[in-house]
């Protein structure tokens, strides 16, 4: 069965494999090899038979073809209501067809499926809440991505990403040493303004174990310092684990369920090792979804819950503001119109819709909701791994139009986006469409308006 050197059905489990993939610029060779990748139709059908259970089977079968899902999909709206972007059509013509043909599909079909599953669906699951039958096509596309991955049909970046999780237990090549050094570096870097700043590593029995997104140590280390400062101002007894600190899961986007399990178990192990009271996850949507919402199932935890209670950063912020651990200087509240990007992953898919509103009531004087918002909000346009896939950049940019128009309609120039994917998508949206907006995580905004207790202030102030 012909397989490529880079593009194949094997998982990426070694650094050498990763390096080979990374040295293939833009995945040129990878995608070329994909054109010749043979589909193991027997294995595909066996896998479908084993994993396509009543929920998915019923969804495929009872779809009434009513088309109510059409308007729910931002890709449909952004692409001038192209019928080929109707969620039901997208899933029926891919997964539905694959099942109908009992897995007997060819390379071209698989590549069409890959494009549909990654460039026409961000797995935001909005369609599922507009379907009278409760058919969640986002979930089905997640399942399809898994089938595609098992056959080697996954975008180059996600093959790398899932390999990173297998090799580094992080979405990027951040080793334990890199991570620990970054924490120490940040303590030193912020020494002048925050002389007592500590990023406690591997402290047992802390109230909070803080876990994050590998992009933070890799590209945005200030985010770690900001988190540390805010925890310190709030007087929290907190720690970060030296291992098991990574919450994200490009493996979830890729559908590499084995890597998903490896990744979340590294975090759960840290919980068991350090016995914290609870975990706080950084301002990332899919990280929270992966490790807190879906992770327990990959790890086989029958309660469906993480070993210790886990909350999203926005929940911690709301609680700290509510209990007065963080006090906002009223004169420093955001005066200009400001809007909030509800992340699909923790708002629609984890029930946190009220939390951002509570936060905004403390920090903003002119908060403006996008329409629709909360559980019904549209995906930023870059979810489901789409931000990171070069091959589908054009499709992603078209999809951003819906968020652009939603933001413009609020009249706000500042968008708070406590989710790495949303933050990226909104940044790129500005780059592509120049609508004159700014975007921010919560941490820097909070730092600019929080009241600092005397004992934490730098001496010279």
């Amino acid at each position, binding site marked *: 069965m012909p397989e490529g050197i880079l593009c194949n059905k094997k998982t990426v489990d070694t650094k050498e494999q990763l390096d080979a993939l990374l040295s293939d610029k833009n995945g040129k060779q990878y995608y070329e090899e994909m054109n010749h990748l043979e589909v193991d139709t027997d294995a595909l059908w066996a896998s479908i038979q084993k*994993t396509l*259970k*009543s*929920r998915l*089977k*019923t*969804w495929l*079968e*009872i*779809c*009434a*073809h*009513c*088309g*109510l899902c*059409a*308007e*729910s999909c931002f890709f*449909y709206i952004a692409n001038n*209501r192209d*019928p*080929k972007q*109707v969620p*039901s*059509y997208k899933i*029926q013509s891919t997964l539905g067809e694959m099942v109908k043909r009992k897995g007997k599909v060819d390379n071209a079909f698989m590549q069409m499926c890959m494009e549909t599953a990654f460039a026409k669906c961000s797995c935001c699951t909005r369609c*599922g*809440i*507009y*379907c*009278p*039958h*409760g*058919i*969640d096509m986002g979930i089905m596309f997640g399942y399809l991505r898994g089938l595609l991955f098992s056959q080697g049909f996954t975008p180059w970046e996600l093959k790398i990403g899932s390999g990173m999780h297998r090799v580094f237990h992080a979405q990027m090549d951040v080793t334990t040493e890199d991570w620990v050094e970054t924490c120490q570096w940040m303590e030193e870097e912020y020494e002048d303004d925050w002389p007592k700043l500590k990023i406690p590593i591997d402290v047992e029995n802390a109230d909070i174990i803080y876990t994050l997104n590998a992009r933070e140590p890799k590209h945005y280390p200030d985010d770690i310092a900001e988190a540390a400062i805010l925890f310190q101002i709030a007087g929290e007894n907190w720690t970060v684990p030296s291992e098991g600190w990574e919450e994200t899961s490009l493996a979830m986007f890729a559908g590499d369920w084995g890597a998903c399990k490896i990744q979340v178990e590294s975090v759960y192990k840290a919980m068991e090792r350090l016995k914290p009271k609870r975990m706080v996850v950084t301002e990332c949507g899919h990280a929270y979804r992966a490790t807190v*919402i*879906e992770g*327990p*199932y990959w790890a*086989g935890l*029958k*309660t*469906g*819950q993480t070993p210790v209670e886990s909350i999203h950063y926005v929940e911690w912020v709301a609680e700290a503001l509510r209990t007065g651990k963080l006090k906002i200087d009223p004169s420093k509240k955001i005066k200009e119109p400001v809007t909030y990007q509800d992340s699909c992953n923790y708002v*629609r*898919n*984890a*029930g*946190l*819709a*009220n939390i951002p509103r509570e936060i905004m009531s403390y920090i903003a004087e002119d908060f403006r909701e996008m329409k*629709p918002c*909360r*559980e*019904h909000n549209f995906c930023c346009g870059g979810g489901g791994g789409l931000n990171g896939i070069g091959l589908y950049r054009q499709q992603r940019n078209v999809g951003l139009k819906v968020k652009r128009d939603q933001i413009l309609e609020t009249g706000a120039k500042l968008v708070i986006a406590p989710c790495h994917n949303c933050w990226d998508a909104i940044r790129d949206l500005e780059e592509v469409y120049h609508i004159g907006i700014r975007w921010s995580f919560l941490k820097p905004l909070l730092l600019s308006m929080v009241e600092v207790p005397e004992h934490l202030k730098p001496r010279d102030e």
Partner: protein
Amino acid sequence: MYQILTGPVLWLSFAVFITGCAVRIILYIKGLDWQADRVAYTAHMSYGLKGAVRSIVLWLFPFGTRSWRVNPVFSTVFFIFHICLIFTPVFLLAHNIILKQRFGFSLPALPGPLADIMTVALIASVVFMVLRRIALSEVRILTTFYDYLVLAITAAPFITGFFAHHLSSGYSFWINAHILSGEIMFVTIPFTKLSHFVLFFMSRGQLGMDYGIKRGGMKGKSFSW
């Protein structure tokens, strides 16, 4: 003919319908898998059931969910269709007279003119749905012959029943056609998309449990459908 259709064939179609629906429900529930579906059904049953009930009930009311509200015309026709589909035959005077004759009991009956209006409303809503399938590009792309067949199976007992009652001639033809088409509908329910007669409740209930257990229900926030 009439004797056979209202005798063994009727019983057979009822038997297929009831057994078929029961099997569909049982197979659906048996096929749920906490790990594959990633929903801890049994670990958090009370949250799950609460989510399931909300997910079903809100969708059973016109304008009970945002999806219904943002599609007012379709929703209205859709509810007229389903209400007439279920209530007209169950509470039709003629059906209840037969029920009384055969089993000694009957349900309250709809006034004749109202039953007529409901029948016409059902037929009109079927016509609307057919036209909608042809007119709207987002529905047209999804539509197959099967969708029209299902609509035809559903509308046939109403059209034939209406003719049997109102046409001055051809009664025995229309009444036989009416009974037969009704039986065809019963028999096809478990084996076609019409299985949503029961699977709607299963599928909606499942997604409700998903939201009730995993996707926020346990955070004290019921999903606003």
